[in-house]
């Protein structure tokens, strides 16, 4: 197993900057997820680590070895593709044995290793079948077996679960994580699914438009998003971002309401800004009495999602926000409600740069 280091890695396709100056350090045995929307450069980054693409600029290291110019076959990486990419003309056995045959291992050793990894992934009864005779979940396991059989230094996974049905996906999430921890293998996982990222990763790298937006543990990414992109990408429904204007000292003028901070630190932070976003997650909006409320709002839409209701509210004339409430709550479109924002869960972002302002950390420290 190795650590992986990307040093200012860029990849351009013509004039398109697919990946732009990505610097990243992945520890030996760590499970790191590259998370972002389609076209954010996460798969391109993975393919550069695999050696399929060569970076336009920057270097890639496995431990201290510069692998930037080393072809994929000499990097000892294993990769699972979204399409599984099983060789359709080979049986499951031959698919798994393919990397070992290329290494010219003795036949009995190949046989032993193939059967061992097949047992580990519970596909040892499928070895004689062709990929077309397998279900999606079975194909996925074969692809994983093929990636693991050569005992790679790094395991690369490109959206491996996105073609599975929802139930199997939940099961395979846990299974993959368990396998990775058991084998102690360095894993880099690409997905656009935040639930997968949050549930499986040691650390998450959020990417957008070829650039890293934030690197952090799942908890850091969720509770301290570095900018408005991360804030609005993570969470279902995502964080509400309410555009507000700083009026005097520690007061904000927001659509339909005024918000006044009580502490001095807020004043210090706010005085350098004119326009900001006040960010609040849907679960941090509470219903309260008129006296205790920060603002009032009108219910627009109520969407039941099982244990909760997602309620869309109108603030002022144009601004809408969403909040989550247990499904037992009575919510009727057109009704007026009084809302309170959990003070220690308010996020502030500079409107111009989208960057996080350090309000929340300070409040946390004070408490």
């Amino acid at each position, binding site marked *: 197993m190795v650590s992986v280091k990307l040093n200012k890695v860029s990849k351009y396709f013509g004039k398109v900057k697919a990946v732009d100056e990505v610097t990243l350090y992945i520890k030996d045995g760590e499970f790191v997820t590259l998370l972002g929307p389609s076209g954010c450069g996460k798969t391109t980054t993975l393919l550069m680590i*695999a050696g399929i693409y060569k970076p336009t600029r920057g270097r890639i290291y496995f431990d201290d070895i510069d692998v930037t110019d080393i*072809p*994929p076959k000499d990097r000892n990486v294993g*990769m699972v593709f979204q399409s599984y*990419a099983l060789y359709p003309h080979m049986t499951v056995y031959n698919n798994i044995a393919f990397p070992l045959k*290329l290494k010219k291992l003795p036949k009995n050793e190949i046989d032993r290793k193939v059967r061992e990894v097949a047992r580990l992934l519970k596909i040892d009864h499928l070895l004689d079948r062709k990929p077309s005779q397998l279900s999606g979940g079975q194909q996925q396991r074969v692809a994983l077996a093929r990636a693991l059989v050569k005992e790679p230094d790094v395991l690369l996974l490109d959206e491996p679960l996105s073609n599975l049905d929802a139930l199997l996906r939940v099961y395979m999430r846990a299974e993959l994580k368990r396998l990775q921890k058991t084998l102690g293998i360095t894993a880099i996982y690409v997905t656009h699914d935040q639930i997968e990222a949050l549930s499986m990763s040691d650390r998450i790298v959020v990417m957008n438009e070829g650039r890293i937006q934030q690197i952090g543990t799942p908890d850091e990414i969720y509770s301290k998003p570095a900018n408005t992109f991360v804030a609005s990408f993570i969470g279902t429904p995502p964080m509400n971002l309410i555009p507000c204007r700083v009026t005097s000292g520690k007061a904000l003028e927001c659509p339909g309401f005024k918000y006044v901070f009580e502490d001095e630190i807020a004043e210090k932070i706010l005085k350098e800004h004119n326009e900001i976003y006040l960010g609040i997650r849907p679960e941090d909006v509470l219903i309260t009495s008129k006296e205790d409320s920060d603002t009032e709002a009108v219910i627009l839409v109520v969407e039941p999602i099982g244990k909760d209701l997602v309620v869309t509210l109108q603030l002022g004339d144009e601004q809408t926000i969403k909040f989550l409430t247990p499904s037992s709550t009575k919510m009727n479109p057109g009704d007026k409600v009084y809302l309170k924002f959990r003070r220690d869960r308010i996020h502030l972002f500079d409107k111009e740069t989208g960057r996080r302002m350090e309000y929340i950390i300070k409040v946390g420290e004070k408490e």
Partner: protein
Amino acid sequence: MTRLKNLSRKMLPWIFLAPLIVMIILFWVTPVGITIFLSFTNVTYKNFVKFVHGIEGAFNYTLENFNKLLGGDPYIREIAMITLLYVGSVLSINAFYSLALSIAIVYFIRNEYLSTLMRVIWLLPRITPAVVYGFLWIWLIAPDSGPLYQLFAAMGIAPQNWLLERPYSQFLMIVVNGYVGASFGMIIYTSAIKSIPEDLIRAAKVDGASDFQIAKSIILPLLKWPMLFVISWQTLSLIASYEQILILWGSYGATRAAGTTVFAIYAWFKAFEMGEYAYGATVSLLLVAIGVVLIFLYFKIFGFHKLMQPSKIEV
């Protein structure tokens, strides 16, 4: 109303098929019928006019043509050998050399401009009218003035009469036809190679395969069906093709001297140069029989229902 609807639903496929059926009847069934009929007669240029006007007693029914074909004709053995050489060699260019070339163009040459240029070069003879293409070759190899002739002379190689001297003449026949036919296979192969999902190639690279190993272990096995198709299609069309030989050599005497008399052109010469219509028809009938046998054989290999299934290249 429903009855009318049912009727039109039944009729619809036949309406669509009608032009094709008419074509097959006019240009395949009828000629084959006439050929079969003629091959059992003694029609030659001598009694042809009477035969066409349906004058009684103008011709006799006979099995003589078949006796001649199966033993009496002293050239048949040689012609069979030449046909075998022609079909076998041109087929190996059209089916196998074009395969190697396609893999090289699509997979190994990563330069888009270069590979497009190569494709155009191989497509040129196909889009050039046959007569122009044929005459270009005649000019190329013309004694004294031809560029190829001069090139060989300049290199100190004794000038040869490429058109008439064996084995050069037979080599010429193979190259001229192979160059035209290769583009067909290349079009099929290049599109088949391009339809191999990129992920398969990437997976093989990550698994540790070199470019050559990818070509051998991944690309080639996935081209099994396109290969079978090209081989069968090309054998069938090669058995019946003679236009380039006719353009280059022009007469029976020339093809005899050059050793380029294949069955298809032998039938043509017999019928239209020597006026032995009945015997020409018998030789053609042999070709039809070989073609039909091969079609059944290929259907057996392909399996008709397998042919009707979706693309074999998709994963």
